[in-house]
């Protein structure tokens, strides 16, 4: 406890206070103000209020919002257009050697999910979206949840949060043209050579004609822990069981705006769709922190279970609308790696969720009935 040096050492706590010379009293008041001021400053600094240049989840979310030509209140800030799906996950006995997660046990776990396309617009053109994604919420029979966010690209475009921020800023549409400024995009690519691999994937990877025959990759490393206390770093992918059929450039140009959703509904009317969950086990030297670099092809792979999707419903009214598919929600048997971009997802998804739910609460989001093109669904 701090003791002012002028206090008579023999004063008992309950003795009446000796009269204070006014100068000493004001010095003590100053000391109190200094303590309070220091606490308040530390709090403000921790909150980021004193450092407007520091990258925070709010500022990164602002940058992502900036890539959209206009705001879409009530929708996700990224991958705004999608469709809710439901079904189950069935694990395999081989999984127990890798992770004790109950979702991977050979039983059926209920699954809620969302298939979506990249981009900030909920009215984007399905057939022209380079990036597709699958998000899942799985609930094991122990009641523990596992949420996943996976993408059709095989690795992330950049290896740091700062580079992702720079990429979002470079991708903001120029007010004059409504499109990103090519000079800024080129400057970003030059400053971040690691993004060339992604650009090459976007240019050359084949386009499949359905959400169903697309592979979705978890991208980030996680640690799998088995019941015996062993653990290993892994990545996983959902490898489709549906045969590949190309979506030709001509089809991409002429397709209906909601092509992927309509097509998915049509397939599900015929029967469930399946993906194998393939786990890749890290080898020596594989970096768990860098989602922009794929691990070598010869790494051991194990099929640990199957995603089965049985139903789909529009996101405007579906159960996935109010769900944050935060990939850092993992059950016992799975833990996070030290990948900073994985941790940043939790921060930015929470921002996006807070913003869109607030807009929904305030009635700023379009009402489900006014969502376009739903009437066209079969």
């Amino acid at each position, binding site marked *: 406890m701090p003791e002012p040096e002028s206090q008579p050492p023999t004063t008992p706590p309950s003795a009446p206070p000796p009269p204070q010379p006014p100068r000493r009293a004001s010095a003590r008041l100053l000391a109190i103000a200094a303590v309070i001021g220091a606490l308040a400053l530390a709090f403000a600094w921790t909150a980021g209020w004193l450092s407007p240049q520091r990258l925070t989840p709010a500022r990164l979310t602002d940058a992502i919002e900036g890539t959209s030509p206009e705001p879409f209140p009530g929708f996700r800030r990224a991958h705004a257009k999608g469709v809710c799906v439901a079904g189950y996950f069935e694990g395999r006995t081989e999984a127990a050697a890798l992770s004790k997660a109950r979702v991977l046990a050979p039983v059926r776990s209920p699954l809620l999910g969302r298939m979506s396309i990249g981009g900030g617009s909920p009215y984007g053109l399905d057939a022209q979206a380079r990036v597709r994604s699958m998000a899942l919420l799985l609930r094991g029979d122990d009641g523990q949840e596992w949420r996943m966010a996976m993408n059709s690209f095989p690795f992330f475009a950049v290896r740091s949060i700062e580079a992702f921020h720079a990429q979002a800023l470079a991708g903001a549409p120029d007010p004059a043209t409504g499109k990103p400024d090519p000079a800024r995009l080129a400057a970003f690519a030059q400053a971040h050579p690691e993004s060339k691999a992604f650009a090459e994937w976007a240019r050359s990877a084949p386009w499949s004609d359905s959400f169903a025959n697309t592979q979705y990759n978890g991208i980030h490393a996680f640690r799998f822990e088995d019941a015996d206390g062993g653990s290993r770093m892994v990545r996983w992918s959902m490898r489709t069981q549906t045969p590949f059929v190309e979506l030709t450039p001509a089809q991409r140009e002429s397709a209906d705006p909601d092509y992927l959703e309509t097509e998915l509904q049509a397939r599900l009317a015929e029967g469930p769709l399946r993906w194998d969950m393939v786990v890749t086990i890290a080898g020596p030297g594989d970096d768990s922190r860098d989602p922009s670099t794929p691990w070598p092809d010869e790494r051991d792979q194990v099929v640990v279970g199957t995603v089965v999707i049985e139903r789909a419903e529009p996101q405007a009214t579906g159960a996935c609308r109010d769900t944050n598919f935060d990939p850092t929600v993992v059950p016992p048997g799975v833990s996070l790696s030290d990948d900073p971009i994985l941790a940043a997802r*939790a921060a930015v998804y929470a921002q996006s969720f807070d913003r869109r739910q607030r807009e929904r609460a305030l009635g700023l989001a379009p009402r489900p009935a006014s969502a376009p093109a739903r009437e066209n669904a079969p």
Partner: protein
Amino acid sequence: MSRPAHFNATARLLHWGMAAMVLGMLFVGVAMVSSMTLRPMLLSLHRPLGVAILLLAVVRLANRLRHPPPPLPADLPRIQAIAAHVSHWLLYALLFAMPLVGWAMVSAAGNPVVLWPGATLPAIAPQDPAIYSLLRGAHTWLARVLFALVLLHVAAALFHAWVRRDGVFEAMARGAPPVPDRTR
């Protein structure tokens, strides 16, 4: 009932322990929403710590009702005495409200209320955007009110300790002096 000059040992232990926890929680809370990479780690601290504070607040309220605190000095100006009473009951209210609002908020988001791997609390609010948004805003604003009250409390405590030197600070800082042993 006679009122002692000092808080009892339980009250002092709870006070100083919870002071560290609450101040830590406030900093963890703002760091959690402003950090790009620490959110998962800080969240795994924030939830068990919040529930611990809620449980300790119950024990503390029970102890306070059973063992009245020492009276304020008789010469304390009336306005300061009123401020002391109001701010203390507000602090108590927030010790309960912050964890409960946080728990309800996570429930209304539809997120699992994970305390640590494998330990999940039940939802105490329905999954709903409007309820979530109300609670999310309340959690932030009540935290700011709580931090302001903590600052006021620290300022007042130091004012008692350094300026008035009226024994109020010592009543919480240390126990009663030992009673002389008359049997010897």
